[in-house]
């Protein structure tokens, strides 16, 4: 079926989605922040094992999500 016509203008829908690349950049930034936080938590005397474990789990989840989203993605702006 051929279209009768294009509509004159799209609806105003404020659509501006996270792209895979932008999502990967954000995940990488969060990974760096979480890794630094984890390092500090581990270095703290009497560190809370539960807090350390939570950070470890978050770091793994961030890395896994990024790997699924953009396999082989390289951060163009490594910190």
């Amino acid at each position: 079926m051929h279209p009768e016509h294009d509509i004159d203008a799209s609806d105003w829908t404020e659509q501006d989605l996270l792209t895979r690349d932008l999502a990967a950049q954000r995940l990488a930034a969060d990974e760096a922040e979480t890794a630094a936080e984890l390092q500090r938590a581990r270095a703290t005397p009497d560190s809370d094992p539960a807090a350390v474990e939570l950070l470890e789990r978050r770091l793994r989840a961030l890395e896994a999500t990024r790997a699924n989203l953009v396999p082989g993605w390289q951060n163009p702006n490594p910190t």
Partner: protein
Amino acid sequence: MPLQPSMKLISVDDHLIEHPNVWTDRLPQKYLDQGPRIVDEPSSTGGAPIQVWYYDGKRFPAIGLNAVAGKKPEEFGVEPVRYADMIPGCYDPKARIVDMDLDGVYGAVNFPSFPRFAGGLFTKESGDFELALACVQAYNDFLIDEWCAVAPHRFIPVIILPLWDTDRCVEEIRRCAAKGAKGITFPENTVPLELPSIYTDHWDTVFSVAEETNMPLCMHFGSSGSPPVTAPEAPYAVTISLYGTNSMSATAHLLFSPVFHRHPNLKVALSEGGVGWVPYLLERIDGTWERHRWYQNVVKDIRPSDLFRKHIYGCFIDDVAGLKARYDIGIPNMTWECDYPHSDSYWPHSRRYAEKAFADIPDSEVHQIVELNARKLFNFYDEPAV
């Protein structure tokens, strides 16, 4: 730490992108050619084919992704043009839950994309209203039976209406309420959609059934299709900066209308417009009401700001001014939003951001804003443990 781990963030304004088979899976055979469907077309730049929606003989060049008034067509290229370009959380509810977990967000209302935020596309772009009704019903069935069913205790179903026919609206609200719907999208102004205004009695049966089924009307800014554009040459930054004025207009429109007087149990959620403007506007509206109500067709014995406190909820992603003014706004009227998957969300650190934003707010107030007010508004509670 005011945002306690036990507090569950509930976003009252997120978005989903309908996958390509939402309508083709559900429409009767006779409508499959006319109903919304995705078509692959060659890219004008020679890249991978682009995917576009077709509906009722019309071509919609964006798959719910980049239809931003004020953007030049050549700028659309920076947005995804194929589903494969999107993050799966846009269109896959299981992936969405993973992304919400990563973001520290527990529950969410999701607005539609292709049908527009209040389903206005099926009103404005249809030549066959039996087809349009089938499309509205198909979207609502998808939302409740497919999307929200993945995690019913985390997704809040907010339906769209066949706005061109109030009898069909009433039937659809009742049908969806029986299936578990919790809210109803509604344009923040019906007039730009060439529909009767809320000052008439046209919508009374719709608002009555919303009260009867205890579902709020969710008015996403922009759902009337009338953006605050100041000049054809003005950069889109002007429009973005003025988004909140759309919610301000809706608030004045509602508070001087007969709606809340005729429907004392109706609730309205203003979706995505911030809250920092509320104290100023209520002061202005009350002042206008004090001086000018005697010769105008407005209700004379109930102060508009009292109506606001009883009926209207605002929400915000980040709004420093709004948090400072929270006692003037009314904490029970404030909810939180995340706006995933739009790029102005803070994903994947919405919770971290909220911890910082709420750092100086007492725990009990934070709990109301991020979770409890939304649960009450949408009558959305976890199933009791068995």
